[in-house]
């Protein structure tokens, strides 16, 4: 019997090639991670840290570089994919099932972040709840869509490191008056962006990486 898996990938990847160029989002998630880390250390520990007063200039420089990359990298990625795999296919209207999934996920994540900013759960608990929401909401069926459930793993792992507590992450994840709810939200979002970006890129490459075979039998 024919192996359906490559065809499932083709079906999934074809209309979503632009969206699946995951590495384009890494500068954005790196920038968010930086903001989350800076936001969780408003105390003098950073302002007068080991790097001294130059730390802030370094952070500003990092944000500027990240901002530039944010615009440049998507262009470079587009050009690379077009050169290697040809121009992206012209799309039909998006799959309603995909839109429904994306809508539910966005609604639940936005809801979680809003609740966090009101209730101020300890960061590890909030991150665990985000991981749980992703695990429960994301459809478990299908070999392709199921891969995004892996997003739960790094989030849960960071939460577990915070609960342990293991330095230096514990310092980032600590609950208390200095720890704004939005920092945990940023942290979760940046992790989703980073890991999701890598998973997207991997899916696209594993579907499109095959090299032409000169002696393929075109029978039947």
């Amino acid at each position: 019997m024919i192996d359906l898996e490559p065809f499932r990938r083709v079906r999934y990847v074809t209309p979503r090639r632009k969206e699946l160029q995951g590495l384009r989002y890494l500068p954005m998630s790196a920038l968010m991670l930086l903001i989350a880390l800076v936001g969780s250390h408003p105390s003098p520990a950073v302002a007068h840290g080991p790097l001294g007063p130059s730390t802030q200039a370094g952070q500003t420089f990092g944000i500027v570089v990240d901002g530039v990359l944010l615009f440049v990298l998507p262009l470079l990625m587009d050009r690379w994919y077009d050169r290697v795999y040809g121009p992206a296919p012209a799309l039909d209207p998006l799959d309603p099932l995909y839109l429904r999934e994306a809508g539910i996920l966005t609604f639940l994540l936005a809801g979680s972040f809003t609740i966090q900013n009101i209730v101020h759960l300890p960061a590890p608990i909030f991150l665990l709840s985000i991981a749980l929401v992703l695990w429960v909401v994301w459809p478990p069926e299908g070999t392709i869509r199921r891969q995004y459930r892996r997003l739960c793993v790094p989030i849960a792992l960071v939460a577990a490191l915070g609960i342990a507590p293991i330095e230096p992450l514990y310092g980032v994840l600590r609950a208390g008056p200095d720890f704004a709810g939005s920092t945990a939200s940023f942290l979760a979002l940046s992790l989703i962006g980073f890991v999701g970006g890598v998973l997207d890129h991997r899916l696209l490459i594993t579907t499109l990486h095959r090299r032409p075979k000169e002696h393929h039998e075109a029978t039947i």
Partner: protein
Amino acid sequence: MKQPFEDLAGLDRLVHEPARLAILTALSACQSADFLYLQSLTGISKGNLSNHLAKLEEGGLIALEKTYERKTPRTRVHLTEVGREAITEHWERLEALHAEAERLRSAGSLVPEGA
């Protein structure tokens, strides 16, 4: 009574060949696709891809559109209405067969040879 895999014999061979199935599957998920994109999806040479596309065009399942982009020739491929119906029906049959195989496996009716 109809046998579980009787439908296999009725599968359209023009559609079912793996490279052509990949081409038609990709085209069914978009309005049109570039030759190079289809080549990367199927992993076959330009010559073989051209042969497959010619067969599909001959069968009335696809249409080819040749254009120039900055002096570079580009070939865009899209499904015809007949092609879209054919690939949709083909996947429905494959998925029905797959579901039937799963059902028989869970019922224990499918026992591998030598078991």
